[in-house]
């Protein structure tokens, strides 16, 4: 049984997913990648991660629905960081209302993301 902390990353940009997976694995985390919100929910239910990283705009099920599912249906208190693009400020507010813990506006620095992940997982 691995002691690594599990992170589910929901992001439809496959290149970005791969980059973040590589970066976070280097930091010692166990990454599960979802290309859309539907896959994200499946991975969350299957692995019960310690942290969720989710893009807001995704195919099939949006990041907001993922947050809502995690907080309201699964009743998990796992920290959630959302990614948003410029012009999605209202979505970010909705994400916070639904229970997101932090957000990062795209384009963001992977180094900064690592800092935030560490901070959330250590608190």
């Amino acid at each position, binding site marked *: 049984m691995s002691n690594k902390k599990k992170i589910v990353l929901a992001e439809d940009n496959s*290149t970005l997913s791969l980059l973040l997976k590589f970066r976070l694995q280097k930091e010692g985390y166990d990454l599960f990648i979802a290309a859309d919100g539907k896959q994200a929910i499946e991975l969350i239910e299957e692995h019960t991660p310690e942290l969720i990283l989710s893009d807001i705009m995704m195919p099939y099920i949006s990041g907001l629905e993922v947050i809502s599912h995690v907080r309201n249906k699964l009743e998990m208190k796992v920290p959630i960081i959302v990614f948003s693009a410029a012009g999605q400020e209202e979505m970010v507010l909705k994400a916070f209302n639904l229970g997101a813990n932090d957000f990062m506006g795209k384009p963001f*620095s992977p180094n900064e993301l690592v800092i935030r992940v560490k901070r959330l997982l250590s608190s």
Partner: protein
Amino acid sequence: MNDYQNILEYFNQLPTLVKVVWVISIALFTLILGLIAYLKILRINLRRNEIKRIKYQEIYEEHLINYLYAGDNIDEISTEQREFINKMKKDISIEFNRNILVAVMTKLVNDISGEVATAIYKLYTETGLIDYSLQKLKARKWEIIASGIYELTQFEVKHVYKEIEKLIKHPHKEVRNQAQLYLVNLFQFKGLKFLNDLEYQLSEWNQIQLLEILQKFDNQEITDITIWLKSTNISVVEFALKLAKVYNQFESKETLLELLRHDNKELKVQTINVLTYFYDTECKTYLKSNFHQSSESEQIAFFKLLENVAENSDEDFVIENISHPNFKIKLAALKILKDINPDKFNYLEIAKNNTDAKRIIEFIEHN
């Protein structure tokens, strides 16, 4: 053989019209068969290309991520990274591969910043992708030129700005648009210099795109917009008015007041709207004295301004217009009167049985 001869004989005996119908039917049938075969081949090729594209995309994604994390120092290229660059140099000589690599790099660079983004910009130069983009600028087809500019913008290639500036007057709209986006994306407010002598019209969509780009920068120190407010190109003036409002260019007020004398009515309306936003009172005298010569849109805009800045001295002018035939002006006039002189407004109330404005007054009373 006999069957064939029988068919031929039968055909020869047919009336001419039936023969023609037969010939046309066979020709159409052959054509349809040909088209079906062509579509089938086309679909197979498209699917094959798509599978190949997905496969190459995955390969390049992996290569790219390995490249990005292969170096310890961002300023130096490691041996492993050099090997990747050399491999890519060979790969990208094929257009198909080059397009996929550029797409993968663009996809990533749009979503990340910092050291990783800088490393991708460097890779773009080192692999020679930059040369292909620069070659595109010399293409005859407009869409190729536009895609070249787009790539140079995405990978923040600043030193070729002189080449791009030449394209700002390109006859095709999309090329001009991409050139403008390049300049503003990479040089922020300084990039707007092209507005100084822009001859073509800047569409509403272009203006929105430029404003959106400008707003994403940390440095919001805008350059002087006076020259654009005085431009002979109406679309440039319209854009400058938007800048004046978004960036609170109160210092350009004198030029804005001059614009009230402009020949273009729509521009005058937009100027009044900006002055309304600034709560300007200086323009009132001019607008009042020219009220009857103004268009209805200007009059409505002026009354909106008055709703913000009306004083007791405006009372006579407002009363003059409480029976204005335009409903919006009539409503604004009554609202203003209620604000600056409630007694007089109540007097109107006494007489409201005799006035057409009865419903308007009641509405204002309750709002």
